[in-house]
């Protein structure tokens, strides 16, 4: 039983890293949104499985939040924004897909080396989860660095938060306060970002972050 339990959790967390990689090479916003929804779905499954394994019913709530908000509500809302702005085909990478993937592999290797070494005392499941979670966090960061578009920046940030949720659920018995707060903060973050996106549109007629850089105070 221990073997299969470990394998399933391992597979789900590993898939999350894999989906993070898929996000890196998407070249259209609408496709990126689909992949983000998949990312959230895998997260929800992973969290639900943790809830089952750890016999911690409150984690089902976290899974539900991930499923409803991150996999359905947010992608749908973002898609509407993207279509409204007419940018669903756009995406700009700062550097090429190949280079981004190479960086991604490097980051995953780094997080494995760091986390597996320091958590030698912890139980194997928590170790793997933590290592994968750090990978997802770092890949989210990488995506935020490699994309210029404000919408994909937001998606990068949310996949980073997904990594945090994975870490929080992997830490057995972590109090509920934190999980709700994580989900809640994502919600607030989304509202704030949503407001900003509309404001940016109003003011700049573009969500390209490079256009915004021109207004930097020092260059007046």
């Amino acid at each position, binding site marked *: 039983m221990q073997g299969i339990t470990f394998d399933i959790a391992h597979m789900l967390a590993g898939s999350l890293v894999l989906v993070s990689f898929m996000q890196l090479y998407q070249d259209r916003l609408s496709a990126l949104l689909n992949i983000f929804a998949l990312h959230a779905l895998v997260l929800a499954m992973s969290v639900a499985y943790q809830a089952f394994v750890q016999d911690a019913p409150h984690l089902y709530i976290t899974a539900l939040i991930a499923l409803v908000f991150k996999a359905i509500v947010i992608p749908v809302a973002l898609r509407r924004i993207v279509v409204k702005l007419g940018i669903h085909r756009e995406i700009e990478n700062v550097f090429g897909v190949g280079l981004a993937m190479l960086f991604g592999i490097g980051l995953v290797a780094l997080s494995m080396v760091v986390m597996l070494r320091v958590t030698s005392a912890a139980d194997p499941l928590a170790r793997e989860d933590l290592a994968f979670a750090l990978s997802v*966090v770092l890949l989210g960061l990488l995506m935020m660095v490699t994309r210029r578009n404000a919408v994909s920046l937001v998606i990068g*940030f949310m996949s980073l938060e997904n990594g945090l949720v994975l870490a929080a659920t992997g*830490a057995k018995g972590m109090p509920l*306060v934190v999980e709700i*707060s994580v989900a809640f903060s994502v919600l607030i*973050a989304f509202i704030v970002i949503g407001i*900003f996106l509309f*404001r*940016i549109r109003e003011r700049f007629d573009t969500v390209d972050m490079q256009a915004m850089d021109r207004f930097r*105070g020092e260059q007046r």
Partner: protein
Amino acid sequence: MTIDALTGVLLIPALSAALLAVLPGYRLTSRLNMLAAFLTFATAVSLFVVEPVSGRYLLVDDLNKVFIVLTTFVAFTTSAFSASYIGHEIEIGRLKLSHVRFYHAMYQVLMFAMNLALVANNIGLMWVAIELATLTTVLMVGIYRTHEALEAAWKYFILGSVGIALALFGTILVYMAARPVIGEGPDAMVWTILVTKAASFDPDLLNVAFVFLLLGYGTKVGLAPLHAWLPDAHAEGPTPISAVLSGLLLNVALYALLRFKMLLALNPVAIAPGPLMVTMGLISAVFAAFMLYRRRDIKRMFAYSSIEHMGIIVFAFGMGGPLANFAGLLHMTMHSLTKSAIFFAVGHIAQVKGTQKIADMSGLTVTHPVLGWGLVLGVVAIAGLPPMGIFMSEFLVVSSTFARAPWLVLILAVAILAALGGLFMKLNTIAFGEPRGSTAPVEASYVPMFAHLAIVFVAGIYMPPALVTGFQNVARLLG
């Protein structure tokens, strides 16, 4: 939950925020904002008289008492400055009345969040509070809805969220380190329980956790190279918010860092957090000091000066030991008071001149003597010249380091002198150059500014023994 001073510093801002969100107008609400801030300050002072019992969620000890009183005091004086500042902004039509209602409510939410971060006895709760403070300030920085304000808010939001996310990862790792010792559940996140058991935590996990916490909360402290949001956010938001950001929010993030440093210091096998903090502090101080020379925007310049001073403070706490901690604590207090006083002056100056560009506001001592000389006094204080309080604290930082690491003093001295040069070069233009721009009289509230400067001046000459003992106790606590 019983109502005492500890819950008071949370309840007053929370209730006022709800009240201010529905009240129209600005004359009444800005007064109410002041009243609420004053009541919170009075409640905070009462913590010294009757110390409430720390519970599972809220705690009070010598360390956070100092922070709470400083925070609520500066928040109160800033609200007084804010009242006259906002009045002027409405007159010239830069802010709408509906925005002011939002502004006042957010001001109190920010106070609530900062106080919560300071009294939280739970590392998760503290994280939530700092996140709330970040989101509130993001909204306030963007309140003018101009290109620059939106860009600043966006940048602040993205960098702040990434920082906050890294801090959460660090928080989770601390829980993971504590769990095998304390056991599963909420207990493993409570400060007062964590510190008693910290010696037996897994040192490797704590090390990695601290790196994440340093990067995460360090972003909020404004340490280089994670400082990119800070100058923008200071320059483009309303000036009262610049004062609160510089004077208070940076301190709150620093407080979080100090708590985790205490935790690591208790574990004999974990890495010493000191050298990491010393390095980041020095980098920030030197970098920001040299950045001062190229600034054209007055608020941006003082934002860089804040980075420099936070660098010195983090350096002092990184060195550790009773004397350096004392110096760091004193420097933090003096910096908060001086920098907010400077922003009070800068706010009125920018309003009367209609610009923030340094070149367009020269000759200030001629056109507006009180503001001009107030600013001169503030810059003299912030540059660390005697007899002001910052001279005292910088002298203590330097002299306490000299005995232990003379080479580090050299770098620190370069930063302090470079900052002095940069600040005075710009001050020369602003205060004494050819008079330029509007000479219209200004309706300013000088009381908050001069009150702060008076405290800083007195502290440079004489510190009450009770205060010294108090700071010494905290310095010992910090290890």
